[in-house]
C-alpha cells in the first residue's frame, strides 16, 4: 500500500491508521496460526466497543454479554477462514450485527420489541412532551438517557444500525456499507434520515440544551 506524500501531516495520520489496521490483520493472522496471545490482544482491544454496540442493540446486559462472547467465539472458530483482504472490524461487527438481529427477532415473540414505543408504556415523544409537572423530573440524567435510547431504538432497523455504528462505534461509512451490505450512498441516506427523525423526536432535549 503506497502512502500519499503530498501533505506530510496527512501522511503521518494515514500511516498511523494503516498501522492500526495492519495490526488487527497481523493479530488475526497470528490467531489463525494458533497464537493465543494475539487472540487475547484482540479480545482486550474490542471487548468494550463490541459490548457497547451489542448492549445498545439488544438493551439487555446479560444478553449482550452472551452475544459478545459468541462473537469472539465465532471469530476464533472461523480464524482459518478469515480473509486478510477484509478489515477485521468490518468482519467483527458484521458477525455482531447478525447475532444481535437474530436475538432481537427471537425475542420479538416473547416481549414487545426493545425500545419500541409500547415497550415502556407509550410513545416516547408523547411521554416527553406530556405537559405534566414531571417533565422537569424526566429531564434528570437517567431520564434523558432513556429518552435518547428510546428515540434511537425506535428507528427502523437499518437506520438504527447505521447510527450505532457511526455515532457510537466510530465506524466509517465505507465499513458500515460493508457491514450492512449496502452502498456508501445508501449509508449516507440512512444516516441523514435517521438524524432528521432523531432531531424531531429529541427536539425538547435540544431546546433544553440551548437554554
Amino acid at each position, binding site marked *: 500500500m503506497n502512502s500519499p506524500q503530498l501533505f506530510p501531516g496527512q501522511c503521518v495520520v494515514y500511516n498511523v491508521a494503516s498501522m492500526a489496521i495492519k495490526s488487527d490483520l497481523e493479530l488475526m493472522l497470528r490467531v489463525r496460526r494458533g497464537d493465543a496471545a494475539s487472540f487475547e490482544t484482540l479480545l482486550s482491544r474490542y471487548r468494550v466497543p463490541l459490548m457497547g454496540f451489542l448492549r445498545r442493540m439488544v438493551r439487555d446486559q446479560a444478553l449482550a454479554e452472551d452475544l459478545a462472547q459468541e462473537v469472539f467465539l465465532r471469530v476464533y472458530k472461523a480464524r482459518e477462514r478469515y480473509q486478510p483482504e477484509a478489515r477485521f472490524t468490518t468482519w467483527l461487527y458484521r458477525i455482531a450485527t447478525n447475532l444481535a438481529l437474530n436475538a432481537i427477532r427471537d425475542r420479538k415473540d416473547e416481549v414487545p420489541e426493545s425500545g419500541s414505543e409500547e415497550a415502556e408504556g407509550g410513545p416516547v415523544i408523547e411521554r416527553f412532551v406530556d405537559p405534566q409537572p414531571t417533565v422537569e423530573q424526566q429531564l434528570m440524567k437517567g431520564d434523558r438517557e432513556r429518552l*435518547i435510547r428510546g428515540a434511537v431504538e425506535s428507528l427502523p432497523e437499518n437506520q438504527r444500525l447505521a447510527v450505532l455504528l457511526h455515532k457510537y462505534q466510530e465506524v466509517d461509512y465505507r465499513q458500515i456499507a460493508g457491514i450492512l451490505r449496502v452502498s456508501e450512498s445508501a449509508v*449516507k441516506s440512512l444516516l441523514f434520515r435517521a438524524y432528521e427523525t432523531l432531531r424531531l423526536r429529541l427536539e425538547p432535549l435540544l431546546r433544553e440544551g440551548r437554554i
Partner: protein
Amino acid sequence: MNCPERERLFDHTQRLLDQPEAARVRAHLEACPQCSRVVDGYLRLDSVLDEWTTVEPSPGFDARVRQAVETSQAGSAARGLWGLRWAGGLALASLGILLVAGLVWLTRSHRPVSVPATVATQSPRPTAPAPTPREVAKLTPPSVASHQAVTAPQPVTELEPKAVSSSEDEDAHALEDDDLVANFDLLSEIPKGEARVAN
C-alpha cells in the same frame, strides 16, 4: 439566496464534503441564519446522543470468553479423537470380517480332505453289516443314492438318526456327500466277478 439542501448541510456536519464544497457551505452559513440553525441542530443532536452511555462488560467476561474458546478446542479435539477411534474400530472390524471369510474359504476348499474324518466319526461302517452281492447289484447310481439319503435313509443313516436330526443344513449336505463317498467305497469293495454276475 440559494440555500443548500438539508442533506448537504448534514454532510457538512459529518465532514463528508470535499474542500471546495465545504468552503462554499461555510460561506453560505455565515450569511444565512436559517441554515446555521439547521447545522447547529445537527451538531447539538450529536452532542445529545453522546449522553447515551453504555457499560463495560462484567469482570468475568474475559474469563468466560476464554472458557468458551477452550471448550470449543476441547470439543474439536474430542471429535478428532472420536474420529480416530471410529476409524480404528472400522479397520479392526474389516480385518475380522476378512479373517472369518478367509477361514470359511479355506474350510470349503479343503472339504474332500476332511470328509474321511467326518465319515469316520459319523458312519460306523466297520460295524455295519456288509451288503450281499444281490444288494450291491440293486444299488442305484450315486446321484440317485444321494437323493435317497434325504428322502429314504440308507442303512448307514438309520444307524445314526441322531446325527441327521440334530445337524444343521450344512451338516446335512455334508452327510449326503458322505453317503456318496460311502457308496463308491462299497462299489470298490465288490469283487469283479460278482459285479459282472449282477450285470
